[in-house]
């Protein structure tokens, strides 16, 4: 492996509990043996890692106050954890957790917790299949473990904010989260990645979600970083019997974003809804690779992604559905629609179906279009100015997906933020949000 990000690995050699060090050593070995993807590597065909070859340092802890950071996040009512440049900031967090919920740093885990983490970590995000999971292991110093005990119901969302305060020196953050939802537990989780400042930073963020029998999780992963705040990461899920996942994804463009969403239906009767939006402008790049695995019978999956791509931006959507031979009575749906608002904008969209069972329902569709001229005309016949009509229609294109968010406070936070991506003049967005 070329010396991409070697500094992270050098820095990661500091003292850690033995089980973590072992994991790290194995990761380093695997990483060293891997080749960097090129444009000929199918999974990286449209996404270049060139922006990562610059000079990066490992992030130093930030001591900036909330005001100095100039960052606000929505109040979702539940507990929240704020990380700045990868470091947990207790002064900005509210870690009061409901009964039955544990949230601990890997490094602080007691023997029993360490055993649990060690067993689960990497069992979902398979490093052999995902290069940057390998990298995450190689640089693994710490991470967060969220454990929701069996039969626990958490009413308020658990909100994790990962803020990148891009500074003068380019730096990297390795972020890892393991969530275990016990039998018949219910919770909602919001992972918000955001950035302030105009420098360069790279985050490798891997989240693993384990849903045991009958567990129910509303998950949200928001990538709001912009400019030089780059991110390669993924959400890897294992669904147990009769478990239920609703996972909402959002990416605003930045110099480089690549998110892998992998959902393994591993227990019969499991259901997943995976919805997502990506909005790009300027010369931004976003790449979503989703993979829905159906390994067992009687599972359902429903996936909708919509993208709006403007200016010279480039987006990639690769939606894979893999139905194994044993996965009879699977119902899997996938839809990806894209709106290009400029003639120089690019989308590479590819549905990828592999079906080895014969008694399944599977439907997919991908479209690329521009704004419908008749819709524009209709709005104008009602006196609405051309620019506002365009804004309304572009926003309307994603609004259906936004409306699937069940947390009111989150939806209300996102609506004006997203509307603002379609027009900077508030006059054009005054009827949205």
């Amino acid at each position, binding site marked *: 492996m070329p010396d991409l990000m070697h500094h992270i690995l050098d820095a990661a050699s500091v003292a850690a509990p033995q089980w973590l060090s072992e994991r790290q050593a194995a990761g380093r070995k695997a990483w060293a043996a891997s080749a960097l993807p090129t444009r000929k590597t199918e999974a990286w065909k449209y996404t270049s890692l060139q922006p990562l070859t610059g000079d990066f340092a490992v992030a130093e802890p930030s001591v900036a106050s909330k005001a100095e950071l100039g960052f606000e996040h929505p109040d979702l009512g539940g507990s929240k954890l704020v990380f700045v440049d990868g470091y947990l900031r207790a002064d900005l967090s509210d870690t009061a957790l409901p009964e039955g919920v544990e949230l601990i740093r890997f490094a602080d885990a007691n023997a029993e917790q360490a055993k649990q983490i060690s067993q689960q970590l990497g069992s979902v995000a398979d490093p052999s299949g995902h290069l940057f999971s390998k990298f995450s292991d190689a640089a693994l110093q710490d991470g967060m473990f969220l454990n929701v005990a069996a039969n626990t119901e958490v009413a308020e969302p658990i909100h994790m904010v990962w803020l990148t305060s891009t500074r003068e020196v380019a730096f990297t953050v390795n972020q890892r989260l393991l969530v275990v939802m016990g039998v018949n537990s219910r919770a909602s989780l919001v992972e918000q990645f955001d950035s302030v400042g105009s420098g360069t930073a790279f985050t490798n963020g891997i989240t693993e979600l384990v849903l045991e029998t009958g567990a129910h999780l509303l998950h949200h992963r928001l990538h709001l970083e912009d400019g030089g705040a780059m991110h390669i990461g993924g959400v890897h899920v294992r669904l147990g019997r009769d478990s239920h996942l609703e996972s909402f994804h959002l990416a605003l463009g930045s110099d480089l974003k690549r998110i892998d969403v992998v959902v393994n239906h591993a227990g019969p009767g499991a259901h997943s809804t995976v919805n997502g939006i990506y909005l790009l402008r300027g010369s931004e790049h976003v790449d979503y690779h989703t993979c829905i695995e159906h390994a067992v019978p009687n599972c359902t999956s429903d996936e909708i992604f919509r993208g709006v791509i403007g200016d010279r931006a480039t987006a990639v959507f690769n939606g894979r559905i893999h139905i194994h031979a044993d996965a009879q009575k699977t119902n899997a749906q996938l839809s990806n629609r894209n709106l290009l608002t400029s003639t120089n904008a690019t989308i590479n969209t590819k549905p990828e179906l592999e079906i080895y069972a014969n008694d399944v329902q599977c439907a997919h569709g991908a479209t690329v279009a521009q704004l419908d001229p008749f*819709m524009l005309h209709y709005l104008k*016949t009602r006196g609405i100015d051309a620019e506002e*009509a365009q804004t*309304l229609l572009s926003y*309307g294109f994603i609004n259906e997906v936004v409306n699937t968010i069940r947390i009111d406070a989150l939806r209300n936070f996102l609506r004006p933020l997203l509307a603002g991506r379609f027009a900077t003049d508030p006059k054009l967005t005054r*009827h949205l949000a």
Partner: protein
Amino acid sequence: MLKIDNLHVRVDGKDILKGLSLHIGAGEVHAIMGPNGSGKSTLGHVLAGRPGYEVTAGTVEFMGQDIFALETEERAHLGLFLAYQYPVEIPGVSNMEFLKAAVDTMHEKRGEPALDTVSFMKLARETCKQVDLDQAFLKRGVNEGFSGGEKKRNELMQMMMLQPRLAIMDETDSGLDIDALQVVATGVNSMRSSDRSFILVTHYQRLLDYIEPDFVHVLAAGRIVKSGDKSLALELEDRGYAWLEDEVA
């Protein structure tokens, strides 16, 4: 209000309107009838400036201005409204957002004070009631999944909220049952005034039982071939259009 002289319009390389002339004064209600394919809907679309409708000759003056020098939205600002026969569905844009955007813009262009949210909601709910549309439709996407009749009522609601000077109703009666037809007629009649005019494009005389026109015109082969009062509509109901087409030929 509206002066159309010798209007020729081409759509997809085909001449549809071939020398149509029509003058409409303030406060008048004109019915335009005619067989399928005569160009009835084309008239509404070209007045509203729909892309793809090419004017090859003739002039149209609306409120003293050359209508073809104006953008679609500028025509609307001057008070032109077209109620579509087949309104478009716009998922993701709620009826409420859409109506608010339209009403706010109209108020602004007319120099009227903006409606605050509460007054707007009140107006929207009242208008919903008038057109017999459930208020739940305000929250739905524009025309999204509406039945044919619901779409027509939604068009009527927009007209009532936007208060145009000239409303063109393109076959608003088609596909409506008698109750819905009466709702449309009541809505239009409630808006009749000395400074507002209507063009009712229709296939059937039935609508004119409820909305009494001042003039009735027959459009055939791209031109107005006969004009009269409401008795002409009754004659057409009896005799059909064939005799007129023969007469013109």
